[in-house]
């Protein structure tokens, strides 16, 4: 590590440098632009938004209210039912993804990772395709397919002998949320599939070989050997699903509008946040209450991430492969 000479090298020797000299200018040139944009347009707004949530508008200015907005959000008859409803809907949205999307993703990953599979790349490309479409397009596509007007969805169910079960689900208070969750599942199943696929490929052949020699069935091999080895990925998928859940505004807004109908039955925190701070139709925008809702979302996300880092990651056994 003895780099001598060279004008650019002065004061910039990589590694094991004394740190007592002035901060090297070229490092500053490398990091400053990115740090500036990231700080101004992401970190600052996140903190400033939290700060705003502690204020309430009064007259022309605003006044500090501490946690008053949060108390209002959780208890005021105007806000509380909407807020708790949205939290509940977000949880349903998350649960559907955990129970449907991630298991399907795992099954597809197992199939995709099977030995000597022809056409692996083609399968992977096609299966991941819906994920690259926007929520807007996906929302409209399914809105059309599920539309009783076009009747395509109904006709397909009839072919499967289930014609009698078709309903205009997106317009029904009970099933609309689950239908929307399943649309999102359809779109994003490629993500857990790829992550599980990568984890499965990392398992050495000998492990499976040994289990086979010992007479374990395929099913047993999977649950006793393979699944424990990919458990860390299960956690990654779960936390990504959880955080992604809070970005689902686009789909609901596209299919059901900002009022998240019918009768707010598909209202999630994203749509509630939008209506509250931006205003919609007769409702006037309220930036500080909006900031309060994003603060609550922040708390929910942090709770999930902390649970993942301090409970799941500590408990789960990671095997060095």
């Amino acid at each position, binding site marked *: 590590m003895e*780099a001598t000479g*060279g004008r*650019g090298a002065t004061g*910039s020797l990589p590694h094991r*440098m004394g740190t007592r000299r002035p*901060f090297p200018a070229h490092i500053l040139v*490398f*990091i400053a632009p*990115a*740090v500036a*944009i*990231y700080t*101004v*347009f992401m970190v600052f*707004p*996140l903190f400033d*938004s939290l700060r705003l949530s502690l204020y309430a508008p009064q007259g022309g200015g605003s006044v500090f209210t501490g946690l008053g907005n949060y108390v209002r959000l959780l208890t005021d008859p105007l806000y509380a039912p909407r807020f708790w409803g949205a939290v509940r809907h977000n949880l349903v949205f998350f649960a559907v993804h955990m129970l449907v999307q991630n298991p399907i993703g795992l099954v597809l990953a197992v*199939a*995709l*990772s*099977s*030995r*000597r*599979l022809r056409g*692996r790349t083609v399968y*992977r*490309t*096609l*299966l991941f395709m819906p994920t*690259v*479409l*926007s929520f*807007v*397009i996906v929302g*409209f596509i399914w809105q*059309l*397919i599920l539309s009783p007007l*076009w009747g395509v969805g109904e*006709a397909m169910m009839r072919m499967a002998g289930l014609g009698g079960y078709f309903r205009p689900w997106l317009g029904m208070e009970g099933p609309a949320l689950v239908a929307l969750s399943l649309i999102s599942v*359809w779109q994003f199943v490629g993500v857990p599939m790829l*992550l599980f696929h*990568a984890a*499965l*490929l*990392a*398992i050495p052949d000998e492990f*499976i070989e040994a289990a086979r020699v010992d007479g374990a*069935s395929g099913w047993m091999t999977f649950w006793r050997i*393979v699944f424990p080895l990919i458990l860390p990925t299960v956690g990654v998928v779960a936390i990504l699903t959880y*955080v992604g859940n809070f*970005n689902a*505004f*686009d789909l609901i807004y*596209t299919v059901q509008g900002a009022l998240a109908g019918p009768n707010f039955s598909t209202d999630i925190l994203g749509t509630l946040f939008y209506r509250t*701070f931006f205003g919609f139709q007769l409702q006037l925008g309220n*930036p500080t209450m*909006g900031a309060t809702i*994003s603060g609550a*979302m922040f708390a929910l996300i942090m709770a999930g*991430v902390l649970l993942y880092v301090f409970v799941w990651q500590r408990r789960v056994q990671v095997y060095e492969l």
Partner: protein
Amino acid sequence: MARADVWREPLRAPAAVTKEGWGPPGAHLVLGAYVLVAIFPVVLIVMNSFKSRAAIFGEAYTPPRPGTFDLIGYETVFTRGHFERYFSNSVAVTGTAIILIVLLGAAVAFALSQYRFRGNTSLALYMAVGIMIPIRLGTVSILNLSSALGLANTLWSLVLVYTAQGLPLAVFILQLFMRQVPRDLLDAARIDGMSEYRIFGLVLPLVRPAVASVAVLTMIPIWNDLWFPLILAPGEATKTVTLGAQMFVGQFISDWNALLAALTLAMLPVLALYVVLSRQLIRGLTAGALK
């Protein structure tokens, strides 16, 4: 994909079929069935966008044929919508943001992986925080900021927000790859008198695959985003394709030809790009999440 065949199917997969080289039929059955689920809705929309109204409803499942082929939907979209403008807005925003993300992100990644300086670890952590927290939570302040800076209803407000949103993951992935560049090579360049900036220019092409992955990976959410265009730049002059499609389709909800044509137009660029770049995308996604 050196280890692509590591995980094997359950023992029940018939050995004879495996020998023929197609792999386990069970896997093909599962994957084939789900491929249908994944692509059928898209194919249905694209196919019907080229048909007359009667055929869309009468024979939804057949490809367009001479009797049913009709471009009326596209005519409506091109005369009534402003898709060319939406499209060029999206290209401008996404393109500029990607260039900034890759260039500025690579510079930080280079500094983090090449130099040991005060605050190196804290900087890495500071940048990594943004990977998990959705930037949307700061929207109220971003909107204030954008008006305060005079950026309301400009494409620049979108570019800057997307750049900030894309940087954390870009820095994270790029530094993983830059750490693997042989240090001797760079030291040799230093001995030859190259400036640190020239050396950065030397490293960038060496991690080209990672740069491509980052570019594709960050491009998709930017191109597809509805939230920020809706809030920061909803004006007619600054609409992106995603917002334009959302509003257009909302207006033409009863004109099925226009509806299907608009959807097809909005998704074809993304799909075309995906077919070309899917390898980079998939590699980037797995690198980002598992490393």
